[in-house]
């Protein structure tokens, strides 16, 4: 992979920007002109070369900056990492999965050597080299889940499968869209999805749970979720709501292109071997409206999706204050002609 890692910020001066390559590979989630919440899960198999779904874990130009942002968020609030005591097997499962995948998929950036249980891991972009004993937490400076979560882009939740449901019993969550890990830790599936609207009527959550509980070793799955953020801010947590909530008032018809961002979450789920748990990865991609307008198919489609979005979803996703202004801004690009189904850019 030929990537120069960018020096940029996701807070304060928000210097984050996507290069043309990053824009082109953006995981645009809307194949049609309207959007309704659905399960839309597919096998997490190897995708097209260079795409965000080519590998199990996607490392892009924002890798170093994002890891720095995570470290900052965690330093300011340690409750962004939670791990209940019975999840240690799942933690090691997660470490093994991420180390194995990254070293196999990005051999120029990450190496892993194993001599029985004696492992040596090298992360060149972050300048980390560690030798440790797999399974022995005293040989790592921190718990295995925290150790590798700091080195992979995204938010992570480890789920314990018991009592016919899933429990969010461990998490490393620094870039979530508006839910609190500290509050939700230990909750069962239906509890932590409690606040999601409209969905109980559809039974979508029940079907999704059944599907997730049947995910098998060696057969991970993925889906896309989306929302919108003002400024390319990763940490849109309820904890720090006072810091970013007011930004919603700063959107004007002139700055929509720069301030308003589409935030897409590539969610993937893996069955874990020793713990029989599930690992849930939420990988976040941000693109400004200006950047989105690079591709007419995208900007037109998003205009239609946003315009027709159900009011419950507008409210739940926190878009109320700037939805109309954004729709107005996007309408300039929409010629109204029918478009074929599909998420591809030109």
């Amino acid at each position, binding site marked *: 992979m030929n990537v120069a890692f960018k020096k940029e910020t996701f807070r304060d001066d928000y210097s984050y920007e996507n290069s043309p390559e990053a824009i082109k590979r953006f995981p645009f989630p809307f194949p049609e002109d309207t959007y309704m919440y659905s399960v839309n899960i597919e096998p997490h198999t190897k995708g097209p070369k260079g795409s965000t779904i080519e590998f199990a874990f996607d490392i892009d130009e924002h890798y170093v900056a994002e890891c720095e942002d995570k470290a900052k968020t965690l330093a300011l609030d340690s409750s962004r990492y939670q791990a209940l005591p019975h999840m240690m097997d799942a933690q090691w499962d997660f470490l093994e999965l991420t180390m194995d995948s990254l070293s196999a998929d990005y051999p120029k950036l990450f190496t892993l050597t194993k001599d029985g249980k004696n492992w040596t891991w090298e992360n060149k972009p972050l300048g980390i080299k560690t030798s440790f004993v797999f399974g022995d937490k005293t040989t790592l400076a921190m718990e295995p889940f925290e150790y590798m979560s700091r080195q992979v882009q995204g938010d992570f939740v480890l789920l314990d499968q018991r009592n016919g449901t899933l429990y969010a019993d461990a998490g490393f969550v620094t870039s979530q869209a508006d839910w609190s890990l500290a509050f939700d830790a230990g909750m069962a599936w239906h509890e932590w999805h409690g606040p999601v609207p409209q969905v109980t009527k559809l039974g979508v959550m029940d079907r999704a749970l059944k599907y997730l509980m049947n995910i098998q070793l060696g057969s991970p799955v993925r889906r896309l979720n989306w929302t919108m953020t003002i400024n390319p801010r990763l940490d849109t947590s309820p904890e720090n709501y006072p810091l970013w909530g007011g930004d919603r008032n700063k959107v004007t018809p002139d700055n929509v292109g720069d301030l308003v961002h589409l935030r897409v979450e590539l969610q993937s789920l893996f069955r874990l071997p020793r713990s029989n748990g599930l690992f849930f990865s939420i990988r976040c991609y941000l693109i400004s409206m200006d950047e989105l307008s690079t591709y007419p198919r995208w900007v037109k489609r998003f205009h239609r999706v946003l315009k027709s979005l159900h009011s419950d979803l507008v409210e739940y996703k926190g878009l109320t*204050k700037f939805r109309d202004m954004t729709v107005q801004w996007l309408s300039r690009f929409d010629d109204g002609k029918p478009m074929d189904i599909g998420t591809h850019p030109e």
Partner: protein
Amino acid sequence: MERGYWIRSKPVYSALLWQQKATAHLVMVEGSAGGLAAIKLFQQMQPLQPTTVIYVKDKVSDADYSVALRKIVPDDLLVFETKDEAMIALQKYLPNALMGLRIYVAGSERFMWSIAQIAGEYGIDDADIYKELTGTLARSVYCVHCKTITHEAHTNIKKCCGCGKMLFVRDHFSRLMGAYMGLMVDAESPGVLPEIEEIYP
């Protein structure tokens, strides 16, 4: 609240009913309303299995049901003046208890979830604790910003006793904390507060 709106994380409580399949029963009730719920329970039936009742009297209660309860509780009745003493009694009871114990609680949410937290340390799932909400609808609120829990919230918006922010009391509930989520209500427009109403009397 919008009609038809409900969320699954908000706990829903029901009247206490004896579980026929059990090896022992433990009933814990708070205040006069809780005492009444216990009497109501014993009027259903006197259970076959050994039964212990822990009754915490209200400080400002005008009805003390300990005398009435002493007449109908067949085995052990423990009466306490404070919740703390009751929780200590629970901590003494559980290590010797066996599988097949059924637990029934009646009182405020704070009372019931304190019991659930202690019982959880002994592997009891809160779904297996029968809960009847009596006495008050007051909520405990977890401030997501400073992580303090403020108790006795009777209003839709409550001032956090930790950081002073005005918190909107949501329906999203954490069983492990025994508290509802509180989020700063005026983060987007500081000082602009919706009407404060007493909706949890």
